[in-house]
């Protein structure tokens, strides 16, 4: 039996498998009816049962014992030597163990290099293995047996140390992988439309919290607005309905962002919640909250420090996403009229045209042009011309339905796409626009009249009546506009009618 310790399997899948293996083999080798694995919780001075083998099965059980100083267990733990005793319940043998565990320092703090200088001493793993034999069936544990058990347990625990060390190294390698992959996710978030989702998914994939919530401060800096939340299974939903005024005392989140947190509730939730203000160049842009409140599972210190080290990157990624959106918005919209630009319009036009074709719905296009715009610019200057354009843009935007789509097509030309609208409906809108634009008075302080009125000419074409393709539809609207402009301006013409009028004119000629 001397060589038994050497036969121990070195690696186990996890702690549970290790304990099970030890209890099973010890029970068999030393003919013990019951074998229990205890861990000594130094902080609470409790001996805590981790697993027991009895009746041919291993199982977890709850047993917490506070040892008196003169008890056999206290003696075993203090001397690290086996102790056997007998009482009315049976024969007992206590084999203590104690192993020191060193782990690589946390990656976030240590920066990566392994080696003695970067190792941290963990709390020692100590406790004892209790073997029992009943008074009826069993015999007492002899000193020789006690020594053998002690050797055996010692050998097993050394194997456990190796397994634990391998486990820690695996954890360390995993942390490095997490850092690499999350850094990539955050860096790639710049141009990805679904960036917020990617960031939350990345966090959940590697850490797995009960919930992750993301709040961002609005542009005016008055509110903390909910963006997204991810649950334990990684399902993401919008929390846009959550809006928190950024005022001291309004909400704990506001206090954290404003730096007014008293720390009382932070202390209260510190084990299960992490609030991470997202700061970019000294400015807080939002708040990321991860929590294990429902499960009450402690967020490990390693996870905390790693997440904290990511906070800067996450903040930067989110800020980049917002900046990118802003740039994209600026490049899609005309700053003067606030109308979308031609590039954006072309994309939408195609989509709407296909939709109209597919669902056999009507689609109208209005092509508008400010009358005598060149003269306005030449006479009053570009500033007044710009003002006129701005006003026309305002009138158009205020009269459209949500599904309509206008665009500054170039110069003073404006196109309006009207999905699901017939020619007659488009004409009604055109009349309303023309009337309202005529009412607009643009102040011109240096002119005799002190103000300027403008008018617009409008040409309308409709699908499917006037054209079967995008190009022809635009062409027809342009034709109709040209007809109006060549017949006195300030009017409205439908492509279908222009055709008829042209035919009549040709006939006359």
């Amino acid at each position: 039996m001397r060589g038994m310790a050497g036969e121990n399997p070195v690696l186990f899948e996890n702690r549970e498998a290790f304990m099970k293996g030890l209890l099973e083999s010890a029970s068999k080798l030393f003919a013990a009816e019951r074998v229990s694995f205890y861990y000594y919780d130094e902080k609470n001075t409790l001996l805590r049962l981790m697993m027991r083998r009895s009746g041919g099965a291993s199982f977890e059980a709850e047993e917490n014992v506070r040892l008196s100083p003169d008890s056999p267990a206290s003696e075993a733990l203090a001397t690290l030597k086996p102790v056997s005793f007998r009482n009315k319940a049976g024969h007992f043998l206590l084999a203590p163990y104690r192993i020191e565990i060193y782990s690589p320092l946390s990656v976030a703090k240590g920066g990566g290099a392994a080696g003695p200088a970067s190792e941290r001493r963990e709390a020692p793993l100590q406790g004892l293995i209790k073997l029992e034999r009943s008074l009826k069936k069993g015999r007492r544990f002899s000193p020789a047996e006690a020594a053998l058990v002690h050797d055996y347990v010692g050998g097993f625990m050394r194997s456990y140390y190796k397994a634990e060390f391998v486990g820690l190294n695996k954890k360390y390698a995993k942390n490095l992988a997490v850092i690499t992959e999350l850094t990539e996710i955050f860096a790639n978030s710049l141009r990805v439309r679904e960036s917020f989702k990617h960031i939350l998914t990345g966090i959940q994939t590697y850490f797995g919290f009960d919930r992750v919530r993301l709040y961002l401060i609005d542009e005016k800096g008055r509110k903390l607005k909910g963006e997204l939340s991810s649950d334990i299974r990684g399902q993401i939903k919008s929390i846009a309905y959550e809006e928190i005024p950024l005022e001291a005392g309004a909400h704990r989140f506001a206090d954290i962002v404003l730096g007014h947190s008293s720390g009382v509730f932070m202390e209260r939730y510190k084990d299960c919640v992490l609030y991470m203000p997202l700061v970019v160049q000294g400015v807080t842009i939002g708040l990321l909250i991860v929590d294990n409140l429902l499960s009450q599972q402690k967020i490990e210190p390693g996870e905390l420090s790693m997440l904290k080290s990511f906070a800067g990157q996450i903040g930067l990624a989110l800020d980049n996403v917002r900046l990118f959106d802003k740039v994209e918005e600026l490049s899609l919209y005309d700053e003067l009229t606030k109308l979308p630009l031609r590039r954006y319009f072309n994309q939408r036009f195609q989509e709407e045209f296909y939709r109209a074709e597919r669902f056999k719905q009507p689609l109208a296009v209005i092509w508008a042009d400010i009358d005598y715009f060149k003269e306005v610019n030449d006479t009053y200057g570009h500033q007044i011309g710009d003002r006129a354009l701005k006003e026309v843009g305002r009138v158009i935007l205020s009269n459209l339905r949500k599904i309509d789509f206008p665009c500054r097509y170039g110069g003073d030309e404006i196109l309006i796409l009207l999905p699901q609208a017939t020619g007659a409906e488009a004409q009604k809108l055109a009349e309303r626009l023309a009337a309202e634009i005529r009412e607009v008075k643009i102040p011109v302080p240096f002119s005799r009249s002190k103000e300027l009125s403008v008018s617009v000419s409008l040409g309308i074409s409709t699908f499917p009546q006037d054209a079967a393709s995008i190009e022809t539809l635009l062409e027809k609207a342009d034709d109709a506009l040209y007809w109006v402009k060549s017949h006195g301006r300030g009017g409205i013409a439908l492509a279908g009618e222009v055709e008829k009028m042209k035919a009549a004119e040709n006939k006359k000629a």
Partner: protein
Amino acid sequence: MLIWLLADPDTGKFAAFKNLLNSFSAHYPDIKVDFRVLTRRSMWRSLFAHLRDSKNRETADIIELPHSWTAVFAKLGLLAEIGGVLESFNPARYPDFLRKGCVTEESDTAFSAPWWMEAPALFYRPEALKKAGLSPETDLLDWEHFLSACGRLAAGNRKRGFYPVMHGAGRMSAAHALPCVWNRGGNLFSEDMNRCALNREETVKGLEDYLEPALRGYLPLFGESVFEGGPFYEESAAMVLGTRTPASPGRKSSFRPVRLPGGRTREQVLGYNLAAASGSPNLKEAGQFLKWALSADNSRSFAEDFGVFPCLNAALEETLSEAGGEVWRGIFSAPSMTSNTTVYPTAELLLDKALWHASLRIARGAYAREDFLRELVIAHGEIDYLLSLY
């Protein structure tokens, strides 16, 4: 197929389960079944670990859980609809009070099936009480009487290692504290379940009542006897707070049950259910096992094997009539279960944590009321916050 069972202070439960498993395997030799026993805390952690990383963290095909965990794990998508796994499941065969423990807050769809139950009572040794001039009928009526009785028992027996009362569950827990809370008219939640009621005076007083026997030294905490092959109730205690009749193996118990002291209108019943995991690749086999384990005969013999109660109406009725004694019949005539809501298990965990810390401090002789109250305030805030989230 893998089954996860909840650990029990009584190893008799595993012997009973092995019997059940052996008979199942004899009838279904092709179905390989393994089982693992986890403490309540470990089970909770393992189920959440699986939810976090279902690809790499295993879960069982069948899970035993306290009835009050059904709602939260069903909501998190861990549990399969029981009707889909066990076609013959009929909630009407169970007492009304058990049905709420099988569903979620939002629907009547069952996600777990009642398996066995237990009810806390006070067990006393008639001769010990008689020797101290105490009568169970008059001296254990309410908590004050009970504490006085403990005092008299302690004064009358100075033997080292003797305690007037011991805790059968091994430690102070939120689940076992509830009858004391109810005695005072308190509860963990408001009637509508929308607010935590942990800071209500009645609730706090009830919890303090629960700690009082330990504080006065009448009830041992973290005692060594359990480590040394005990506890030897017959020799070291006059009374036991627990759910099973205390007995030494192979010996007839000298303890008799009586209702827990207090003027409650309801008696606590703790239910344990079986559920199938929604992601199990062995749902068919799981259904066969559930059918077997939950059948009238099997569930009854399983419960009887370790001194608890079966859940099916007919089996419960038979057990109660056989158990003799009006005590159990009285308890089961006004049964009350802890709530089965999304937040309840977490609330119980938080209260457990506060009671655990209080127990440690009592054991060290360092208990301070303010510390306990502060922990309750913290738990209260956290539970209210959770209620606003889930």
